[in-house]
Each structure stands twice: as C-alpha cells, then as structure tokens.
C-alpha cells in the first residue's frame, strides 16, 4: 500500500483524480479529514479522521476520533477508534477505546505491551 501511494504521489501532477490519499511525515493537519477511499497517514493530525481504509503508519500521531471500515495502526493514536476491522501492528500505541467487529493485535509480548488499548468488542458494530 505505501508503495502504491508513493507512486501515485510521485505521479501526482497527472490530471486524473486519485483514490488514495497520503499525509507525509512532514505535514501537520489541525482539523477534520472526512471522505472515502484509502488514506495513509505518516504525519500529525489533530482532529477527526474518517475514511474507508485508514493506515496510521509508524511514526504518525493522531489526536482525535478515528472512524474507518478498515483500520491499521502502527503509530500513536489518542482518541476513540471505530472500525469494522482493526489491526494493531507491533509499533502501535492507542490511548482510547477501540470499537470493532474484528481486532488483530500483532506480535510478541513486547508488542502486546506497546499496543496498550482498551478494547471493547461490539457484536452490533456497523
């Protein structure tokens, strides 16, 4: 996914609209990000984030509510998380509630420790 996004970003001068968005590590957004399609965040976001597929990459920092159908977290999230499918990578740190249908927490004991999160399974999600 990041490779695809990087290729799209490089070819970004092309006139056709893209379906994948990415926020680089050099960028900060204070405000609301709402839409559909795929979104990969390497940078900082302070505010609500809503999209179909969200990847919060390692090193990324989000403060705010995150809602997605499919959500992969490798970075830091402070806020409530709502997603049908949630995957926490070994580098993920979540401070907040996770509402999900399926939840995958990747890795060893060490990664379990870093992926500290309050997890609530919700049968009726979505």
């Amino acid at each position, binding site marked *: 996914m990041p490779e695809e996004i990087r290729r799209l*970003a490089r070819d970004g001068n092309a006139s056709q609209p893209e379906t994948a968005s990415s926020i680089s590590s050099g960028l900060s957004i204070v405000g609301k990000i709402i839409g559909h399609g795929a979104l990969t965040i390497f940078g900082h976001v302070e505010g609500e984030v809503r999209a179909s597929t969200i990847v919060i990459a390692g090193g990324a920092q989000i403060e705010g509510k995150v809602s997605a159908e499919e959500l992969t977290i490798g970075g830091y999230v402070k806020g409530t998380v709502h997603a049908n499918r949630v995957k926490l990578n070994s580098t993920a740190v979540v401070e907040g509630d996770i509402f999900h249908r399926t939840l995958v927490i990747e890795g060893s004991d060490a990664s379990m420790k870093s992926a500290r999160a309050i997890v609530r399974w919700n049968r009726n999600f979505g």
Partner: protein
Amino acid sequence: MVFAKAKVDESHSVQVGASAQEAIRRLTRDGDASQPQEASSISSGLSIVGKITGHGALTIFGHVDGEVRASSVVIAKGAQMVGDIVAEELTINGHVKGTLHANRVRLGGTGVVEGDIFHRTLAIEENARFEGMSRRNENAIDMQSLAQANGKGNGTPVSLNPVS
C-alpha cells in the same frame, strides 16, 4: 540497492529523458517501504476542514477549507480549495478562493483563482481564470507569513529562501 541507485543516478546525468525519469520513478517505487515519504496527496474523495502545515510536496485533488502551507503545492484539476496558500512553488489547475503567497506561481489552463496573488514569478496559461490583484515581490513568502507559520503552525514551516 546502493548499486542500483548509483546506476540510476548515472543514467540520469548522462541522458535526462523519459527513460531516466522512469528509472527514478521505479527506484522510488521499489524503495524502502518503511521510510516515510515527503509527498502528500489529498484524493478527490477527501475533504479537509482545517489547517494543513508542513514541508514537502502536497497535491490536492479533493476539497480543502482552510489554510495550506507547504514547500510545493499542486491544486489539481477538479480540486476545490477555500483558504490562503503559502508555498515556494504553487501550481493551480483547480478552483481556489483565497490569497496566494508563493515564489513561483503557475496557473494552468483549468485553474480558477478568486483572490490576490503575491509572487516572484507568475505564469498564467490560456483559459485560466484569475480574478484579483497580483503583486510581484522578491520574497513572496514574506517575513509576516513566516512569523505566522512559526507562531501558529506545528513544527517546521515551509522552507524559505533567505532574505536578500
């Protein structure tokens, strides 16, 4: 990897053409996926209400309501933007309502600007629409906008050329 990179660089310097560009693009695509990249893009399906600040390249295909600061900004065709833009290099092919500050400004044929442009160089293509005032400035990204970027933004603002 290092060897491949050196090869590409060499071919790029020998013949700067489509093939070399393609090679560089391929190299970038095959590059280390874990390394964060400097280019950002906001797709047509996305809306952002708020402030976007930082460095690197930013391409907007979607909707942005708020201030944008980055090194290189492209407002692509179909994009809608309301707010001020501060950039070193700015290309507009979409619709922008706001004041633009950039060293190099290029209004593409599909670009629409409602607002003033402060620039060092300005290019307007045929069929572009521009309603507003344009003013040339040796430092279009002036100290005032720098102070604003430092004061309000998080982290490093756009990289600026030294005041001459």
